[in-house]
Each structure stands twice: as C-alpha cells, then as structure tokens.
C-alpha cells in the first residue's frame, strides 16, 4: 500500500482544527473560509458528529443565515467561529484591514466590521494562518481589527483565542495578555517558532509535539469531506482541486 501524498499546509490546518471542535458545538465560518469549512465537516465526519455547522456562502450548508449570524453570536449561542488575519501582535490584537499606514495603506484587505464583532461574541475563536513568519506575528499590528484585551466590565467570552499555524498551535490568555505555545508540529522546534515570531512566547519545557496527522484523517478529508463540499456547493471548486485523494 503506497503512502498518500503528504498533507498540504491547508490540509494540516484543517485536520488540526477539526480535532479541537467539541461535539454538540454550534460552529460557523464566514467569507473566504474554505479551511474552516473543511475542518468543521471533517470534525462532523469523525470526532464530533453532533455539531451544528453554519457555513456562510454555502449553497446548502449556510443555515440560511446572513447577518443573523451576528445576532446569534450576540445572544451567546455561537460556540465557535473562525478567523484568519494578516497580522497578530503581542497584545493579542489582530489585523484584517490594512498593511502599512492606515491613512495611506500599502495593501487594503477585506477587513470590515465583522471580525470586530464576532471575535468578541462567539464563545471560542480559532485563528489560522497559512504561514508562521515575523511579518505575521508582529510587535504591534498596523491596524486593530479586533482587540485581545478589553476592559473587564466589557462582556466577552472567556476562552483564550487559539491560533493554528504551519509550525505550532498558540493560545492567547486574556488575563495575562500573553501568548503561549501549546504544541509544536513535527519537523519543527520551539526555537523555530520563536525565531519566526517577533514577540515573546511562553512555552512549557519541554514543549509538546502536536500529534501527527493520521492516514484516516487525511483519507476522510480527501474522500467523504471533499465529496460533501462538492455536492453541497460549499467551496466546491476549491475542494475538488485542493483536497484530491492521493
């Protein structure tokens, strides 16, 4: 039996995030969110069959929600939402708006208000980023789309943000305002992670290794999940192209 082709960066992130979804959670993802969508469907097919998945923009799996997703979150009924960001900083802030000076940006990104709302109201947030570099993990973001720490009387979910990268899984503790490394993926060391992060990271010593991807996880992703995405009009073209069985 020949081994299947190694996981791509996207597939790695998909599988890692799928493991951390809790069964029975109500989970959602927004625009341009193929990686989150696939991770929810993979969790549903494996360890978390009773989750409620809301994939905005999907033909069949959107729950027919548009802006109501915000109201759902505000009422405390959205357990998990996903974000990516162009920059994360030491204070736990993230940036989805601009690179460079906000009044004369080098790049203007899709960031609007959504991230500044749902990241405060969903009970848990998974951030993901397809690179782990110093330009991603900066000292101070160029623009705060969502804040890490807010006044104590401003109600928001207590669970730490989780950040999934190709090198590691990080968490941000809002009480201490510090990022820590939860685990480092196989093939990388804690030094690699620190060298590619501008700010300080706490880490257990020794730092745990992220359990490697299993054959079954990849097969399910490239089989059942990919088919379901195509059939339900959920990032169908992307799934057909990027999640091919191998």
């Amino acid at each position, binding site marked *: 039996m020949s081994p299947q082709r190694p996981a791509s960066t996207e597939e790695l992130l998909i599988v890692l995030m799928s493991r951390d979804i809790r069964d029975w959670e109500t989970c959602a993802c927004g625009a341009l969110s193929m990686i989150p969508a696939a991770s929810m469907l993979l969790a549903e097919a494996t360890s978390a069959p009773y989750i409620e998945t809301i994939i905005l923009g999907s033909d069949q799996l959107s729950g027919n929600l548009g802006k109501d997703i915000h109201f759902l979150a505000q009422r405390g009924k959205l357990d998990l939402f996903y974000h990516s960001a162009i920059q994360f900083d030491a204070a736990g802030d993230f940036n989805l708006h601009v690179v460079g000076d906000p009044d004369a940006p080098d790049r203007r990104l899709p960031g609007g208000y959504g991230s500044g*709302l749902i990241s405060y109201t969903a009970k848990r947030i998974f951030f993901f980023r397809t690179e782990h570099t110093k330009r991603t993990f900066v000292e101070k973001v160029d*623009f*705060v789309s969502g804040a890490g720490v807010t*006044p104590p*009387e401003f109600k928001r979910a207590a669970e730490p943000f989780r950040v999934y990268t190709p090198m590691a899984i990080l968490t941000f503790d809002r009480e201490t305002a510090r990022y820590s490394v939860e685990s480092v993926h196989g093939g990388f060391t804690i030094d690699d992670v620190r060298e590619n992060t501008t700010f300080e990271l706490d880490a257990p010593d020794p730092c745990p290794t992220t359990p490697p991807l299993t054959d079954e996880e990849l097969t399910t992703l490239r089989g059942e999940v990919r088919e379901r995405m195509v059939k339900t009009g959920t990032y169908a073209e992307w799934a057909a192209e990027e999640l091919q069985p191998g």
Partner: protein
Amino acid sequence: MGVPYIPVRGLAGTDVMERRDDMIMSYNPFDENDLNVVAKAQNPDVAILHAMKADEQGNALLRQFGEDVVVAQASGKVIITAEEIVDSVQPGDAGGNYISSINVTAVVHAPNGAHPTAVKGYYEMDREHIEEYVQASTDDESFQQYLDRYVIGKTEDEYQAMVAEQSMAAAPAGD
C-alpha cells in the same frame, strides 16, 4: 428604527472605533457592571439602492442578503434603481427583501444598472471591467482617465453601449 444610538457587542479597543467619533464606550443604564460600545445613529439624506424589481408605486424587491432595507428606512429620501419595472411587487415575492413604497421617493428603470457588479438571478459580474477599474485605481492620473472615459459627461445609455460593445468583443467566437 429612529433611535439616537444603539449598543454594539464588539469593537471595543479596535482602531475601527478609535478612528471615528460616533462610537464610544458607555455603561448599561440598567447594569453598572456592564460596559458596551454605543454607536450613534446614521441617517443618510439620500440613499440610492439597486433593486431587482420595482413597481410604479415604489414597492421594490431589494437583494436577499444585505442591509439595503435598513439603509432605506434610515434615509431621508430613497431612490430605487430597478432592473425591471413590474405591475406589482408584493411582500411575499421570493428572491429578495421587500420594501414598501412608503419608504421610497423615486423609482428609476435601470437595466444592467449594477454593472460591473452582479445582480443575482440577472447577470454575473464583469470581471474584465472590474480588473480595468482596479488597475485604473492605482493612481490619480489613471483613475481620472477611467472617469473621463466611462463616467464624466457620459449618459447612462452611452455607458451601457460602451460596456456592451466591450463584452461582445471579449466573448469567445462561437458562443
């Protein structure tokens, strides 16, 4: 809604909030331990909204997902540009959000009016034109050229004729 401000669950500590003066932090009047962001009401003088259908009274079918109905209700005057003028638009009509004529000041028949963007159920976006627009937007001079070519001193009919000619030229032979 006609209220002066509304609490927002989010945006605290963001640059979105910092860079404007119509969002501030305020305590919940019913709970001194609850801090919220409050946003001042936005009331445009005029809203121009593109609808799929409208009737001559001003009842219209606006796009399904989006805030168009809220924008219309918040605005002093509302001008609806519509792909089609029909005999009657009803609240039960499928495929969009109904807005009552009571909110609407004027209706304009504007087929292909959303060009180069899409109207669901009518036409797709014109990718080539959007790329042209994006390229033109990279500096002031090229953007002025874009405006001079397509917008300034041009009527709607002239614009539509120009873009129709372009998309016919772009269509592959045999289609």
